[in-house]
Structure formats: structure tokens, C-alpha cells
């Protein structure tokens, strides 16, 4: 049987249409296993969220259609602007620090240093831990009375700041935790970018008498520009989604000072049982994120052309 088919196929071996799979149906069957969960757990919720945002909606289901009233409520509530600002504030703190630190680590690892793989692993290791683990560890590292961070500051003669309860410091504490946690990811992407830069460019520059800074400025930085754009993009969007660290480490406090947009949505929906309003908040926030993504895309695109 098998050989028969083989022989027939070989004999008929069509030159131009070798795969003969030009059927929509068959191709779509291959997409189905992915498309079914994708439709149910992604496309439907996206649509459903828009629908829910137009209603008063509780855990028991729809109560009544209210049109744009939820959106009006959002824009009339000063909390919204405050929490939106908190989310942006975190982007402003976290994105530049994690990118600069990641670049420095990548530049170090890219050199011929001792124990290179082990050191690279040390930088990357925190990234594989869950937000609960990293938050637990740092919750106690930042402990005002017994924490090692303050013990170290004590040795240096500094005071004992209350990292997690001082409004001025708490965002720095969360930034430090997040940088430590995620910088390995940034480093790995920069490393991949650095390895794409042809070594002879450096050789040529050296022969022309370019110093280390000039080589960094004129070869490394332009060579990394595409990776840099992707990184900034990732970090801005990723930082806007801050939730776990503040939920576990500060509970949004002290006061309301570390409440972010995602936590606002979570509290509105799940603590206050206002699903409709929370859906509207999600949509507004999502539109803001998409706008930021589009602006970044436009800005970085124009520089290329």
C-alpha cells in the first residue's frame, strides 16, 4: 500500500504545485487549536469588556444599561488622575534606571572576564522568580528596624529610613526591587544586540585612534539602537502594568501613594463589586497604553527615515 502510493506520487510528481495544500479549510484546521482558546479567552473578553463598560454590572450580572455614564464617572473622579500619574511616575523612575543598569551589565558581561557565565547567571537569576517571592524577600530587606538595607546604611553612618512607609522613599524602594528583578532580561537583550556588532568596526576605530568613550558613542550606541527601541517599548508598557509588587509590599500605601491604575481597576472590580465601572477603567487605561505604544512607534520610526 505504502509503496504503491509512493510510486504513484513519484510518477505524478507535479513540478509546479509540489505541496498541493492550497485549501483554506485544511490550513485553518491547523490554526483552530490555537484560535479556539484565543477566541474564548481573549477576543470575547475584549468585546465583552466594551459591552460591560456601558452597564452597571455587579458580581450577580448586568443590572442596567447606562451608556457612557461609567466613562463620565471616571473622568470626573480625581482618583483616576492620581493613580494614572502614579503609573506614569513609576515608568519615569523604572524605565531609565533599568535600561542604563541593564546596558552597563551587558557591557561588563560582553568583556572577557573571569567566571563570565556564573556572573551572567547571577544577574539574570532574579528574573526567574515570581513577584511574590521577590516581594517577600525585599519586604524584609527593607524592614526599617531589622532589615539588611538599613543595617548597611547604618554602617555607612546614614539613618534608618522607613523605606516602605515614607511617601518620598516608597517609590524608590519599589523601583529598586523591580530593577533588581527584571534587569537580567534587559541585559540579555542588550547582550544579543552587542554580539551583532561586527568586531572589525571596533578594530578599525582603534586604529583610527578612537578612545573607549568614542567607540561606545559611535559604534556601540548606534549598533544597539534597534534593541534600545524595543527595550524602551517593553519597559514603558511593562512598568505601566505594575501591580504585584505594590499589592504585596505596600498594599497601595502609605495612604494611597503607591496605588496604580491596575490596582485601581482591581479594587473597583473585585473589592467594590463594580464590574462595569472597572471595565470602563480598563478600556480607558488600555487606550492610553495603545496611544503611548503608537507614539513611541511613530517617534522611533521617524528617526530611522
Amino acid at each position, binding site marked *: 500500500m505504502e509503496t504503491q502510493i509512493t510510486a504513484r506520487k513519484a510518477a505524478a510528481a507535479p513540478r509546479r504545485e509540489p505541496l498541493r495544500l492550497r485549501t483554506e479549510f485544511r490550513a485553518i484546521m491547523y490554526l483552530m487549536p490555537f484560535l479556539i482558546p484565543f477566541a474564548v479567552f481573549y477576543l470575547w473578553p475584549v468585546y465583552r469588556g466594551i459591552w460591560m463598560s456601558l452597564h452597571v454590572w455587579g458580581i450577580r450580572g448586568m443590572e442596567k444599561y447606562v451608556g457612557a455614564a461609567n466613562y463620565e464617572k471616571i473622568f470626573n473622579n480625581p482618583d483616576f488622575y492620581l493613580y494614572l500619574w502614579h503609573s506614569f511616575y513609576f515608568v519615569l523612575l523604572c524605565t531609565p534606571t533599568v535600561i542604563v543598569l541593564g546596558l552597563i551589565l551587558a557591557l561588563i558581561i560582553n568583556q572577557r572576564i573571569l567566571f563570565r557565565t556564573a556572573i551572567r547567571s547571577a544577574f539574570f537569576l532574579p528574573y526567574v522568580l515570581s513577584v511574590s517571592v521577590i516581594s517577600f524577600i525585599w519586604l524584609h530587606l527593607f524592614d526599617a528596624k531589622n532589615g539588611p538595607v538599613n543595617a548597611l546604611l547604618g554602617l555607612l553612618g546614614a539613618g534608618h529610613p522607613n523605606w516602605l512607609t515614607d511617601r518620598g522613599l516608597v517609590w524608590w524602594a519599589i523601583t529598586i526591587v523591580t530593577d*533588581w528583578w527584571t534587569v537580567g532580561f534587559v541585559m540579555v537583550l542588550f547582550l544579543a544586540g552587542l554580539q551583532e556588532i561586527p568586531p572589525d568596526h571596533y578594530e578599525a576605530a582603534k586604529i583610527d585612534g578612537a578612545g573607549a568613550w568614542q567607540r561606545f558613542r559611535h559604534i556601540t550606541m548606534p549598533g544597539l539602537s534597534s534593541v534600545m527601541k524595543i527595550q524602551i517599548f517593553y519597559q514603558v508598557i511593562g512598568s505601566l502594568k505594575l501591580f504585584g509588587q505594590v499589592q504585596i509590599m505596600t498594599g497601595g500605601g502609605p495612604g494611597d501613594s503607591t496605588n496604580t491604575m491596575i490596582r485601581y481597576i482591581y479594587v473597583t472590580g473585585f473589592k467594590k463589586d463594580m464590574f462595569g465601572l472597572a471595565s470602563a477603567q480598563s478600556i480607558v487605561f488600555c487606550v492610553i497604553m495603545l496611544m503611548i505604544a503608537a507614539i513611541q512607534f511613530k517617534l522611533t520610526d521617524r528617526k530611522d527615515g
Partner: protein
Amino acid sequence: MKRWLLNIAAALLALLFVFPLVWMLLVSLKPDGTTVYSLSDWVDWSGLNADNYAKVIRDSQILRWTWNSVVIGVLTTVIAVLFSSLAAFAFSKLPFRTRGLFFVLIASGLLIPTEAILIPLYETALHLKLIDNIWAIILPGLTNPIGILLLKQFMDGVPRDYLEAAQIDGSRSFGLWWRVCLPLTRSAMISVGIFYFILSWNNFLWPYLSITSAENMILSAGLPTFLSNNTMSLNLIMAASAIAAIPTIIVFVLLQRHIVQGVSMSGVKG
């Protein structure tokens, strides 16, 4: 350039990075109720023991959560990678007319993050009676399009001649995927798989919302429940954190080449 200076700086930085993890381990091994504060606490290794681990395991459901994390992680990863690979095969090797349309539809999944659809996702899961069920975590975990995009790139590299040869040998399209494309993209699948496993293992917000009873929780969402339990000492909390952290650290150390490859693939090409 002073290479020794660079070496020292790198080593010091690396130590600084692992310090929090070493601290976690040290505190977790100290007798219950003792702290690690002064320098002498660091060098006093006299009473180190694993009692805190035994106590956490006995008094909480942490082993159950670990098991759930493993089951959910493995199922999500295996199913997601296979489904992504099938879709990637269609996009890469089957020239169907609506390909562009479907590709844009699926890639649009990268635009809107899960965080933005939490409320309707919860409502959907509620209607499907999935709340407090491990499938509430697994099924939405299958919708990540990144695997399709990455695997498609690798399948594009499978030469057409191979497929033609296999077809002449009697393979239908399913066989082309299973016998030709799957083995040839194995290393990319492993990288994507490890990436998915870590995402699943560390997934926090959605499991935190969708699972309500203690026995169905996963590690990342279960750990924070210790915070509301005031009787837990620092030593016990660090032992619990270590139980959650050690499996991923072991996986990382064993498979770091693939993990680093997977991460750089997802960033540079995605």
C-alpha cells in the same frame, strides 16, 4: 583598560545581586524567631537547620501549591507549544488565501495585555464554571501569540526540498509537520517552552483572582496569603519563599542556555 578592576567590579556586582537570595536562605535556615541583623548573625552558623521548612510544609498547603504550579506549568507549556507550532506550520508552509487576515488577528493578541481584560475574563470564566478550577489558569495561558511568531521564523528556515522529499515519501501535511518541521525546530520549541513555563510558574495576578480555595492555589498566588497570617515569623516566611524559588532556580541553572536563548529571541525578533 584595567582588566582586574573590571573583574572585581563584576564580581562585586554579582554578589550584590545574589545577596537577597543568600539572605533568604540564611534566614530560612536560622532557628525560628532569630534574625539576621548584625554581622555576627551572618557568621553564626551554629543553629542552622531545616526545621522551618518542615514546619511550613506541615502547617500550610505549600506542597499542594507546588504540585499545582508544576501541573499547570507543564500542561500550559506542552499544549501551548504544540498548538503554536501547528499554527506556525500553517502560516509558514501552507499558502492559504486568508493567511494575512488570520496572522493580523492573532498578532493583535500582543496589543492588549491580560491586565486590561481582567474583568471580562473573570466573567467569562465564571460563566464557564471555571472559577476556582486549575483550567481557569491553563486555558487563558494558551492564548499567547508570541510562540507562533517565533516558531514561524524557525519554520521559515526549513527548506522546501525537505517537505517535497517527505511528501514524495507519502507524508500528508500532518506528517510534514510532525515528522519534518517538529524535529527541525526542536531547539526553538524548547526555548519557547521554557519561556512559557516560567511565565506560567510566576503568573500572579490572574491566578490570584481566579482561584479562591487554598487547595487549588498555585505557589505565586498562595504565598501572599501568608502575609495575612500574623503568626508566621520571618524565618518561616523565608522558608516558604525558598520552597517557591528553589525549583525555578534549579530549572534555570540546568537549562540556562535555552532560557537565555528564548529570552533574546523574544526580544530581538519579537
